[in-house]
Structures are given as C-alpha cells and as structure tokens.
C-alpha cells in the first residue's frame, strides 16, 4: 500500500514535469504548424526571453560589457527595479520585436524554400540568439523571481496526510505551471481552430504560393506566429527560469521537447500536451520502478528510447496528421 501511494506521488510529480516539457514543445508545434519548419531556436528563444526578463526586472544595462569595453565606462545597472508584471509585458514586446526582425532579416528571403533550408536558418538563429543573449545580459547564472509561489505546498501535504496518512510532496510552482499551461493551451487551440488567422496559419504551413493566391499575407502570418512562439517561449522561460535559474543550459531543454513532439505529433497542440505528460510520467515511473535495477539515471535516456519506438511504429505520433502522398 505504501508503495502504491508513493508511486502515485511519483506519477503526480511526473505529470507536473510533463507540463513543463509540454510548454516547450508547444512553441515548436506552433511554428511547425504555421511554416512546416522545425524551429531549432525554440529553446534558445525561451532562454533569451528569460534573460531579457531578468535583465529588465533588475534594471540591467543591456550590452553593458560591450559599452564598458568601448567607452571605458563601468555601467552595470540603471539603479532601478521594474515590477514583475511590467517587466513581463516589456519582455513580451521585445519578443514581438524579435519576431519582426526574424521575418525581415531571415524568413522574407526564404519564401518558397524547402523546409530543410528553413530548418538550417533556425539553427543559425539559435546560435546567433544565444550569442546575443550573452552580449546583452551577461553569461552569469541569474535567479528569476516574478512572484510565483515556490516550495512545497503545505496545504496539499496536510490534506493528503489526513486522507491517506501520507503527505504528498508537491511543488507549488508546478501547480501554477499546470494552471498556466492549461490556459495557454485553451487559448491557442481556440485560436488555431476557430479564427481566420488560425486557418490562414494552417494554409501558410501547407503551401506558400496557394496561401498568397487566396489573399493571405505571409509576412503578417509569420510575424504573428513568431510572436506567439516568442510569447510561449517567455512563459516556458519564466517557469524553467524560476525552477532552475536562468542559465545557458536552459536552451538544452529544447532537446527534451523532441521526444515529446515525436510522441504527440509535430502538428498537434493537444499532442504536445499529451506527449509531454506521457514522457513526464513515464520517465518518473520508470526511474521509480526499473531504475534501481539498472543503477538509476534512466531519466536521461528513457524519453529518447520511447521516441525511437514511436518513430518505428507510428512515425506521425499520436495525434499528428498522417502524411499521404499519391504517386
């Protein structure tokens, strides 16, 4: 019985972790749906958003090192702090600006190109953004606090203790992440399915020429989609940044999104969520049950093995569109 309760706690924590994975995967799905491109830069986008948020919050001078080196000054901070809400809004604006720049400087010149070319472009963008983040805000590890509650939720611990005689240990941040992710997904699904912009987005993903011929502005759709992806990256950046600090390894969480996408399907928003949850729960339960037998650390590879199995048996993922081609 104790084992079972413990397993259910592990599972619950797995679900919460899964939500965090899903948040990152969402950004990928959006761009993929709208441009048929796997956006390698999504993880870096989250990092960049988190860096910018911390920078704005703490009143850091952007490009301080560069300015100091060039002019012999010693600027570091403006000497003010910006309230969280305002800082988040400003960061969102920065992400929209970034979307404009990406469209103007990169995508506009690649209209009608093969997806692989666009994919290569996003790899370039990833490295560029990582460098830009470094130059703008410095490479040190920063703590991010936007006022989200953190630490163990005592009320859940007491309630579950009185029910099962065992207090569940759940991080309050994880609960908040779940709520926010749920809201975000509901909004995104409504957007993609029911608005004309959503329909236009799917059209652009399918065929640039055809989209143009029915009067869809590629420019507008791309800026819109990258802005939304930037916003999702911001949310993911806030969550992960709060959880484990804003550091450059944050961009690597993008790698964890890959198996999530293979499970859920690259084109499905609900798929990203379900995929994230399955991976989150799966790797925690696997570590809990099988881990001790093989010496642990299964969390590092479990997701990828699962993704590999999916690639073999169901390449379109659980919810992805089946690719049919007549020859």
């Amino acid at each position, binding site marked *: 019985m104790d084992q079972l309760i413990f397993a259910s706690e592990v599972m619950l924590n797995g679900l919460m972790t899964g939500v965090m994975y899903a948040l990152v995967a969402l950004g990928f799905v959006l761009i993929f749906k709208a441009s048929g491109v796997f956006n390698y830069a999504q993880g870096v986008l989250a990092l960049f958003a988190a860096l910018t948020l911390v920078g704005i919050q703490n009143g850091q001078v952007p490009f301080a090192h560069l300015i100091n080196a060039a002019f012999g000054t010693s600027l570091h901070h403006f000497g003010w702090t910006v309230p969280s809400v305002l800082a988040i809004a400003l960061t969102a604006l920065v992400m929209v600006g970034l979307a404009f720049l990406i469209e103007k400087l990169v995508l506009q010149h690649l209209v009608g190109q093969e997806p692989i070319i666009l994919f290569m472009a996003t790899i370039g963008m990833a490295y560029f953004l990582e460098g830009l983040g470094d130059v703008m805000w410095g490479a040190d590890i920063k703590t991010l606090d936007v006022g989200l509650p953190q630490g163990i939720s005592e009320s859940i611990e007491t309630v579950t203790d009185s029910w099962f005689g065992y207090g569940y240990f759940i991080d309050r941040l994880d609960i908040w992440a779940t709520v926010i992710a749920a809201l975000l997904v509901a909004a995104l699904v*409504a957007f993609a399915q029911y608005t004309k912009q959503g329909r236009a987005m799917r*059209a652009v*993903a399918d065929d640039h*020429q*055809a989209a*143009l*011929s*029915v009067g869809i502005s590629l420019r507008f759709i791309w800026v819109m989609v990258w802005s939304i992806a930037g916003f999702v990256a911001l949310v993911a950046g806030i969550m992960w940044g709060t959880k484990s600090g804003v550091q450059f390894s944050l961009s690597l969480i993008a790698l964890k999104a890959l198996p999530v996408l293979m499970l859920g399907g690259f084109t499905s928003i609900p798929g990203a969520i379900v995929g994230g949850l399955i991976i989150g729960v799966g790797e925690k339960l696997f570590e809990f049950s099988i881990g001790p037998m093989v010496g642990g650390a299964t969390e590092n590879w479990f997701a990828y093995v699962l993704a590999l199995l999916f690639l073999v048996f169901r390449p379109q993922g659980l919810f992805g569109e089946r690719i049919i*081609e*007549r020859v």
Partner: protein
Amino acid sequence: MNSMTSDGYITADGRQIGGKLMELKNITLRFGGVVAIKDISFDIRQGEIRAIIGPNGAGKSSMLNVVSGFYHPQDGEVWFKGSRRQPMKPHQVAGHGVARTFQNIALFDGMSVLDNIMTGRLNKMKAGFLSQAIWWGKAEREENENRAVVEQIIDFLEIQNIRKTPVGRLPYGLKKRVELARALAAEPQLLLLDEPMAGMNVEEKEDMSRFILDVNDEFGTTICLIEHDMGVVMDLSDRVVVMDYGRKIGDGTPDEVRNNQQVIDAYLGVAHD
C-alpha cells in the same frame, strides 16, 4: 468580332462583352539577362473568356504571374478597373478581386476539401479576433454565411461526395476542380486559370470545359486562361493572345488566330534557308 468598340462587343455566340476590365500596356519582364516577356500589350474585357496560348517557354505563365502580382514587370503598366495598379503583393492582388489556380496545383494537402475552399473566403471575414476565438456573435453568423456560399460552389462543381476528404488523397483531376472551387469562393471579378486541363483525360477535359463555361455564364466571371489543347482553347475562348519567345505574335478571335501565318509558323515550325 466585327463591332469591337471601347464599350465592348458581341461574341460569336451572341453574348455581350463589356469594356476593359484589365489592360496590360507594354509589359516587359526580365530575369537577369533573360527576357521572359517583351513589350506585350493586351486587354481583358468584362465578361469574356480570354486565352493565352503559345509553345512551351513562350512566357504564358510569366504573363499570368504578372497579372496576379507574383512577378513585377520592369517596364509597362497594369490597369485594372480603369485605374493604374501600383506594384502589389500577390495577397493584395487577391484582395482586389483576382483569383487564380496554378499549373501544378497549389492546394493545402493537409486540409479537407471543405477547409481548402473556405480559405478562399478568408478575405470576406471581418469579425474580430476574439469573437472568432470564442465562436460568438458576429463570427458565428459570418462563418455560417461563408459556409453557405462554399456549399453552393461545392454543389455547382459537383464535388459534394468528397467534401470531407483530405485533399492529399484526391486524384489529379479532382484536385484541379477543388482548386477551381477555392478560386471561385473568393467571388473574383477576374479568374486566372493556369493550364486548367493539363494532364487530364478527354472526359475530365470535357467536364472542366463545361465548368469553365458555366462559371462564366452563371456568375458572369471574367476568365483568363492558359491552355495547350488547341481544340479546347478554340471552343472555349472568345479571344486569344498568342505568345512566342516572350513576344505577342497574334491577338484576336479563335478564327482569326487560326489563320494567322505567324501563329502557324510558331506552332508548326518554319523552314529556315
């Protein structure tokens, strides 16, 4: 075409054709050193079926791309509905009442036939963003109205039985018909068809010809088409522009064009000595 005036003319089968809907004046289009279109002028009149023909590589598709805004000519003027058109992006041209199909079919393969045709109505939807997302008020009414129009077109083109089929699964001939349906959904004033019958068998060609004539007849849509099948072109069109190596070598009714020596030379070849 005995009585060609600036107000229009009467066709051989007795239809009244109106004034100039679109006029191209001295269009020249170059790609680097290659001249794709050289100093071509012609007009498309309200309500007529206008064909552009010519051997492969004559510049027909380039011409259509100029009209639909995909290419921008280096020289020349495009006049539409009586005023000179500034250089526009293709999506802006579409917004001004010009719809088109493509030589090698450009449909949204992942979407159903119905959704594909609905994209043709994107420009007709004006409801606010939020209202659409929560499916309420103006958005719902609008969606229903647009759906009704689309259903009409589906009936018209006789594709009811494939409404929900993903386009990727359809055979070639039906894809072409869906593409026509999507273009019609925009209720265009000028409909551009780039080789609407390429790769079709005789039966499919007959169907498509009938639909093109019906569209012109029932909706009064002006149509400009490119086609290789001479028989089809002569049957369908009111007037024909003939292109060869980027130049215009003939312009007139099918009969006039058929008897034009330059056209005969271009198609059958001419002895060089």
